[in-house]
């Protein structure tokens, strides 16, 4: 049984190889063409036959006259890929294949940039990846030069030049030290794609408060709250004031308004006041009458 099966499979293989060998003589195919370009297929013999061109991205069927060239005008096959060609005439089959390559001129970019919002001064905080496509949305696999530019609100520009590898290029950049909107641009040839990155102040830096008596109470107020790059921390950021006194503790959360946070708290003799915002601790003041 086993030798019979092996014999049959070998026979099938040989038959396929013979068919494949025979097809080359009948079909004269280009090895490759550029997407969208005109081409012709020369075939031998005589009479009428049906020509099939099949790639997953495109399927063509033509009735052709054997012995003459079949002409395909520009725009017949625009999708890059590997195409199988079958010529069928009254039970006789010839086949072959050819490749359609992308046009080596960038027309569109797929630009993935993240994040859209991040704190200032973050090392490698901004990432961008680009895929380069031709006019028919074929991925250009050959190496293409891509520049990435991140312009800060002050006008300073970070620039990186990267070559694509199999159609893709990527970069990482630091967020700038100045808050505001930055333009992140990818460019290949004459084609650009831009994203807006909003850079916001980082955590408060060097948080300081002062205390002034105000009637029976104390008025606690921070100095203008800024991040470590000197950008004002946005209004609404919560600052926490804590008073610890003999027999108790009280805590008040206050949003920053016009760069400062202030609150009135009871004036307990011997109380200790602390200020914090998020994970950042400020100064501590001990109050005595």
């Amino acid at each position, binding site marked *: 049984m086993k030798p019979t*099966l092996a014999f049959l499979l070998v026979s099938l293989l040989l038959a396929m190889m013979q068919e494949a060998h025979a097809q080359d003589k009948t079909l004269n195919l280009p090895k490759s063409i550029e997407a969208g370009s005109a081409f012709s297929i020369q075939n031998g013999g005589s009479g009428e036959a049906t020509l099939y061109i099949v790639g997953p*991205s495109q*399927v063509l069927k033509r009735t052709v006259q054997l012995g003459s060239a079949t002409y395909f005008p520009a725009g017949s096959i625009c999708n*890059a890929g590997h195409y199988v060609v079958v010529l069928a005439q009254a039970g006789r089959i010839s086949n072959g294949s050819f490749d359609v390559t992308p046009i080596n001129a960038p027309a569109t970019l797929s630009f993935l940039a993240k994040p859209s919002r991040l704190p200032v001064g973050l090392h490698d905080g901004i990432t961008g*990846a680009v895929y380069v496509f031709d006019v028919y949305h074929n991925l250009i696999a050959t190496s293409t030069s891509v520049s990435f530019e991140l312009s800060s609100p002050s006008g300073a520009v970070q620039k990186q030049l990267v070559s694509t590898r*199999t159609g*893709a290029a990527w970069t990482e950049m630091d967020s700038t030290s100045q808050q505001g909107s930055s333009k992140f641009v990818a460019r290949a040839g004459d084609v650009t794609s831009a994203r807006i990155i909003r850079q916001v102040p980082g955590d408060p830096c060097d948080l300081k408060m002062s205390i002034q008596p105000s009637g029976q109470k104390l008025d606690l107020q921070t100095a203008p709250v800024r991040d470590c790059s000197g950008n004002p921390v946005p209004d609404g950021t919560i600052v926490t004031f804590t008073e610890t006194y003999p027999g108790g503790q009280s805590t008040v959360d206050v949003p920053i308004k016009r760069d400062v946070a202030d609150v009135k708290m009871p004036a307990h003799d011997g109380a200790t006041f602390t200020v914090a915002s998020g994970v950042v601790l400020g100064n501590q003041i001990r109050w005595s009458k």
Partner: protein
Amino acid sequence: MLRHFALLCASILMASDITAAQPEVTVDTFQLKGSRPLEDQTKAAAIRDYLESWQGMNVAFQQDQPNLLDEDFIDTAKDKLADAIDEQAKAGVHTRFQDRVHHIRFLFYSPEGLSIELVDDAEYNVEILDHDKPVSTVPVSARYIVVLTPAEVRWKVRVMQADFK
């Protein structure tokens, strides 16, 4: 003799069915670029979804149903395949893409995690039927560049393009 021949045919059919159901797959990540590590779970999901996309494509082409591509394909890849299905339907042609071998190499995982690029040295059969009459089955060996992108619950094929070897 007739019984032997029937058994032989059945064996071949079974063998081809098994091959059809489970293409031979090898994977490597040695050439992976990008600052984001490709975790095993992500890699397994990407491979699973990519291989399923071949099955989805095959069924969509067999049944002339472009909407069956929605599960596995997105964007340019889906549009191009859907156009091809429309073209074959108009021409009265059916095609089947039966994958046999995939040698997958992961090339790039973009830093923000929104795309994976891989190259697949694939071997498959293209079967062409004209008005349901078999015309030819052609074995193909081609290198595909594939870009996957995360969708709702799976990786979808955004670019699937045979590269000139």
